């Protein structure tokens, strides 16, 4: 039946949706808040995975390892910001340079192309119990983490520093006239954005128990899909809504993919991407038509 998703497939979709929700948050901050098209994510996602796996295998506590991954992501973001602000390289190009370089960096960190994490604790290990299966526990832990991060980001973006960053993205000249250091805001924003993406990568590695240098392929598309689908479900202006939207959008994308895997009559395995895109387009158009009256609510 095309409408049936097994519990495993549904939970898998929600789990991937939550992981890539973090990527969505990062992409939201760079693309939407700062108006800075940032392709560094193709490199910072596997960077987070690589750092966390190497750190856990070296014996570090998984939470600390995840923090290391976030810091590594932040550094990658700073490099892109430096190339752009100090090197005067256009933003998109700067981000491509960084993600290209990160390819080699990731290979060095991993010491190869692929490192499994078959044994070793992850942040999920303490929550493993015989009462709930891991397949249910992991999305719950991820959702909890997501809520905490959203709350922190919401507080930040409604604070003076956060408002300065939002202003930089909306109107850099006016912001500078108001005394905001737009350069500093771009540095902070890029660091924050890629730290979040690297956290996503670290979570992916801990859930799937491996890191691979090719993990980054397609990350930007997944992040943008999360942000855009999310903004269709939550078009309202207060910043909390797009932040939650990143997670909702990501989950919608992964559920659409799960349905596409089920197949529609006449579909071949080649058509997976086409059908996924079609399903998402259908959802977005339907939502647009039904929710039209509420589009301008603030």
């Amino acid at each position: 039946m095309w409408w049936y998703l097994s519990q495993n497939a549904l939970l898998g979709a929600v789990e991937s949706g939550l992981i890539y929700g973090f990527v969505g948050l990062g992409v939201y901050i760079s693309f939407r808040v700062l108006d800075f098209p940032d392709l560094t994510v193709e490199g910072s996602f596997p960077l987070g995975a690589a750092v966390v796996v190497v750190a856990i295998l070296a014996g570090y506590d998984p939470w600390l390892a995840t923090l290391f991954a976030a810091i590594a992501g932040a550094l990658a973001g700073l490099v892109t910001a430096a190339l752009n602000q100090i090197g005067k390289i256009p933003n998109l190009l700067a981000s491509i340079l960084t993600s290209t370089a990160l390819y080699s960096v990731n290979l060095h960190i991993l010491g190869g192309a692929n490192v499994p994490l078959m044994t070793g604790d992850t942040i999920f290990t303490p929550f493993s119990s015989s009462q709930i299966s891991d397949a249910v526990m992991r999305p719950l832990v991820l959702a909890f983490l997501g809520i905490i991060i959203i709350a922190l980001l919401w507080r930040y973006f409604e604070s003076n520093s956060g408002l300065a960053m939002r202003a930089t993205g909306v109107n850099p000249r006016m912001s500078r006239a108001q005394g905001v250091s737009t350069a500093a805001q771009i540095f902070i924003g890029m660091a924050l954005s890629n730290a979040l993406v690297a956290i996503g990568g670290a979570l992916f590695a801990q859930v799937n128990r491996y890191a691979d240098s090719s993990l980054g392929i397609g990350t930007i598309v997944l992040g943008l899909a999360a942000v855009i689908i999310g903004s269709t479900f939550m078009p309202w202006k207060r910043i909390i809504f797009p932040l939650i939207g990143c997670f909702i959008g990501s989950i919608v994308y992964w559920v659409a993919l799960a349905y596409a895997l089920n197949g529609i009559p006449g579909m071949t395995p080649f058509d997976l991407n086409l059908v996924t895109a079609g399903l998402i387009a259908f959802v977005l158009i339907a939502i647009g038509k039904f929710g039209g009256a509420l589009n301008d609510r603030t």
Partner: protein
Amino acid sequence: MRLLILALCGAVLATTPAFAEESQQAVKNQVVAVTSIVEHPALDEVRDGAREALEKAGYQNSNHFKFIYQSAQNRQSTAVQIARKFVGDKVNVIVAIGTPSAQAAVNATSEIPVVFAAVTDPIAAGLMKDPAHPDKNVTGVSDITPVAAHVKFIKELLPNAKKIGYLYNPSETNSVAALKILKEEAAKNGLEVVESTAIQTSQVRNATLALAGKVDAIYITTDNTVVSALETAIMVANENKIPFIAADPASASRGALAAAGVNYHDVGKLTGEIVIRLLKGEKIADIPMEIAPTNDLYINQKTAKLIGYHFPHSVVERATKIIE
């Protein structure tokens, strides 16, 4: 309004498993679910070889048996979702072609038997601890490239060769593992290895050009990136009159001068045979990992004429297939 729609969808999704669970289990199909990390000639041959082995043994798509295939379209996150779907659909056997797909499958289930194929080093990938004694639900067919034999083969084809060019994508584990062995074996045989890397298929042409004039032969193993753009690499090699030696026999049919090694159709056949044993009820602990035999030697006389090369008689005698 839209939130209401979202909530309704969520409610429907959350409850469908309960409704549909029963009807799924009523049909006692045997299902073999195959997934590959990407579509690509060698990996496709594994899938087809497995399917043919199953059909020959009487397992054809019917009311009682299904052969499903899904490709991850080169996205590792998609491979994860495919594995979860197969597990959720309670298939009987999962066949995972390629390291990332195998890792995703092994991580998704510890009950459903997973048969990996076209994975060079299952131990390094964390799939098995001891290939001779499967301790979990995993076994499979390794396509480890006989690099040592290949180096001797290159020496046989080109006794005066000093430098071998190696084309590969450094983010493919199989290629990196092969390179390590290549360097050791080359040193033993008085040869030097010149590396050239291509991160994407679009870079293969430039990577091959970079070797022109520097090497006496170009050698590739089972690198997915290079094999996907094989015709380009061969074209550049032929234009520069450089012998092109590959590890996948099918490469010779695509224009390489010579190819010796694993026949991926045979890998598929071996994989299919393991699946048949599992379907018949054999325990996975009794099925050790197999290494694909590397008996095939294909030579391409058409390419030889193009680059002005003559095969030694010993090679022509041994060849399992000569392409004119």
